[in-house]
């Protein structure tokens, strides 16, 4: 409607416009307030950017029943895998920010992919509001049992005596496990050859077990059973304190590499623009859910630590520090996909 208003019409119109603006302002503040007060009143979708059966799916499925009970609404886990998690992340970032679509982000999608895939549309640090971490999965430095070094000190000496001769595997060239090794070997000044695999930790672990590659970092959940079963040996774990499930495995810190503290974490994020009261409500619910002994026990069996962030701001700070660390490593080694 584009009329040429006369003076009086203009006055009337401006009056109407003013009233409308006031009303609109009132509505916009009132409507979400009402929506927030009875949030959630419909099922909530939690997008997992990986296929069922993986670590992220594992965390989501464990969280689902408890979180549904606390919020009084069903949490629907939706697996949208593809392109190293970028497909699901993109979908979640563009969802309506009303608290009914959440994203289960992890170290790969949030802290690593933005620095590897330069054409990535999503900027996780801007497009998401972090709510809380839920799982902290340490990295485990594993080796074939026949590989001579038995700890990190021996490993450093062994590799230094054989520059460029020792091979290490990884589940992918842009994987956190590769970056963990790159960060470690830079700090230790080691020259090793990187052998990337694809299709998860399985094929790479199999080749370390078969003795075709000497060592690699894996997430503790992929390696713990093989270490306990004696098919692989663990040289170190990337936590500050030792992991209770592997009490004999020293930390990287203990062995002189305090920078080798890292985690394949999983956490819940919401699309940017989700109202703060909803974020707070979800945060409280997740903190409550993570106290559940079943979740702690199930995660604990595979060496994963069930955790929650004290506040959403803490999780934000955690992600920012994590992203800064990995982007630095990526820049150093020059992995890039355009």
């Amino acid at each position, binding site marked *: 409607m584009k009329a040429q208003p006369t003076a009086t019409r203009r006055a009337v119109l401006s009056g109407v416009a003013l009233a409308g603006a006031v009303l609109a302002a009132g509505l916009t503040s009132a409507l979400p307030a009402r929506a927030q007060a009875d949030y959630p009143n419909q099922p909530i979708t939690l997008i997992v950017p990986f*296929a*069922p*059966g*993986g670590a992220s*799916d*594992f965390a989501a*499925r*464990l969280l689902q029943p408890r979180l549904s009970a606390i919020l009084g609404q069903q949490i629907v*886990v939706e*697996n*949208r*895998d*593809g*392109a*190293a998690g*970028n*497909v699901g992340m*993109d979908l979640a970032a563009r969802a309506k920010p009303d608290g009914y679509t959440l994203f289960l982000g992890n170290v790969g999608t949030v802290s690593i992919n933005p620095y*590897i*895939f330069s*054409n990535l549309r999503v900027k996780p640090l801007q497009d998401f509001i972090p709510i809380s971490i839920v799982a902290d999965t340490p990295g485990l430095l594993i080796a074939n049992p026949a590989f001579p070094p038995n700890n990190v000190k021996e490993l450093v000496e062994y590799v230094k005596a054989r520059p*460029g*001769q020792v*091979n290490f595997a990884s589940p*992918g*060239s*842009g994987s956190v496990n590769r970056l963990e090794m790159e960060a470690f070997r830079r700090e230790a000044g080691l020259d090793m*050859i*990187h*052998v*990337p*695999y*694809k*299709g*998860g930790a*399985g*094929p790479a*672990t*199999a*080749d370390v*077990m*078969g003795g*075709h*590659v000497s060592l690699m970092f894996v997430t503790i*959940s992929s390696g*713990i*059973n*093989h270490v*306990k*079963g*004696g*098919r692989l040996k663990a040289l170190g774990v990337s936590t500050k304190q030792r992991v209770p499930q592997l009490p004999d495995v020293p930390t990287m810190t203990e062995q002189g590499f305090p920078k080798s503290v890292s985690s394949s974490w999983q956490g819940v994020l919401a699309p940017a623009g989700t109202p703060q009261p909803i974020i707070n409500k979800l945060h409280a619910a997740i903190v409550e859910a993570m106290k559940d002994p079943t979740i702690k*026990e*199930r995660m604990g*069996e*595979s060496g994963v630590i069930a955790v929650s962030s004290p506040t959403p701001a803490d999780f934000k700070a955690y992600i920012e520090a994590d992203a800064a660390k990995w982007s630095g490593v990526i820049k150093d080694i020059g*992995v*890039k*996909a*355009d």
Partner: protein
Amino acid sequence: MELFNDLLLGFSVALTPMNLAYGFLGVLLGTIIGVLPGLGPVATISILLPVTFALPAPAALIMLAGIYYGAQYGGSTTAILVNLPGESSSVVTAIDGYQMARKGQAGLALATAALCSFIAGTLATIVIAVAAPALAEVALDFGPADYFSLMLFGLVAAVILAHGSIVKAIGMILVGILLGTIGIDANTSVERFTFGIPSFGDGIDFAVIAMGMFGIGETISNLGGSEQGRTFVKEVKNLWPRWADIKRFIKPALRGTALGGCLGLLPGGGPVLASFSTYALEKKLSKTPGEFGKGAIEGVAGPEAANNAAAQTAFIPMLTLGLPSSAVMALMIGALMMQGLSPGPQLMNQRPDLFWGLIASMWLGNLMLVILNLPLVGIWVKLLSVPYRMLYPAIMLFCCIGVYSIHNNALDVVLAAIFGGFGFLAKKLHCEPAPLLLGFILGPMIEETLRRALLISHGDPTVFVTRPISLSFLVLTFLLLIVLVAPMIRVTRQRAFEESTD
């Protein structure tokens, strides 16, 4: 008799009414998704995985396993009836199975597939029970160099699949390899031929190409023919295998089982490699190799036995070492972890009920499948008498649903349509789709293992001839090449001779 006691324990678990019921549900679902084009066991198990969390561990695993090997049975049905392989492992079955159906032997082909799968399933179950741990060690001995040589052997063997022009077959293999390069490169994270489309990052799904080339392409080319062209439907003869047929297919079935059982242990293309190397073997052993591609029963029996045996032995690395050899096995490991169980070498000792229960259920599942499938043969064959105008829209619809369900991505459906056009064109040019699909599957694996082997050896190519396993496959590849090339040389020599006498 420890084995006897273990098996007794296994059957006591597998024969409880609940586990029997879940086993039956699994194989039934598996058969259905196998029959439906595009819907594969990976998607189905993904969807059903959360449901199994509420079940006890043995019931959950028995059902998921049932879906997996049930799909191998069902996958051959559409391959034989309408030339539409539902699973990658039934691509080869489609070659001779469909030709048998065209000759009015659809029933015989289906019954042969079911019986040979059962024979293979039974023998493979025995092998798992007796030798699983020892075989798992063999699988670990395979390094990247060995895989490379094996895949190379497979690729050369793919040429034998062609029953027409060898040059065209090689062309199709190369197109397949090219299509296989699409996606993010594992070594450098560089995107190849993705045109900036994120969905291409993981490459094109096998099912998209298979549905397009076979399903849609076949439909288009059939529309070109007249309704009378389908006379084969009316003269359905010998629904059941006669003694003569059994005598013909028993040996290929046994050879297929042996070959499939071995290749199933290896990660990656186990069942696929198994089914077509068996086909290649049978064609070479046959006294009438000319029949292959025109409806040879051996061409159905061998590959069907092989893919089922491979599907079965693929469980060995997962059960004994906790290592997944395929996407389905990775899902099984996920299922075990959600149950609070740790897949690994200790599983067998910690939960013998689960381990032996699953093994016993595999045999029971195979028995159920053969009982389920044999009476269905008559019904499936009747499906062929459905008029074109109803059958083909239905096939197209199922193809679209199946393709869309892989990643919930409409682009996949568009791609399948494009491959449909390409499939039609290829058919008109007498280029066969099977070699293309095998190139598509094996090409990326060859590249991956070649680069990995050379990375590990620090660029030293002698690694391929100094490792005994690798060397054996290279020698076999060389022999195969001679076998392939020799007739051609003879023909050209003959021609040269004829010319000179002219």
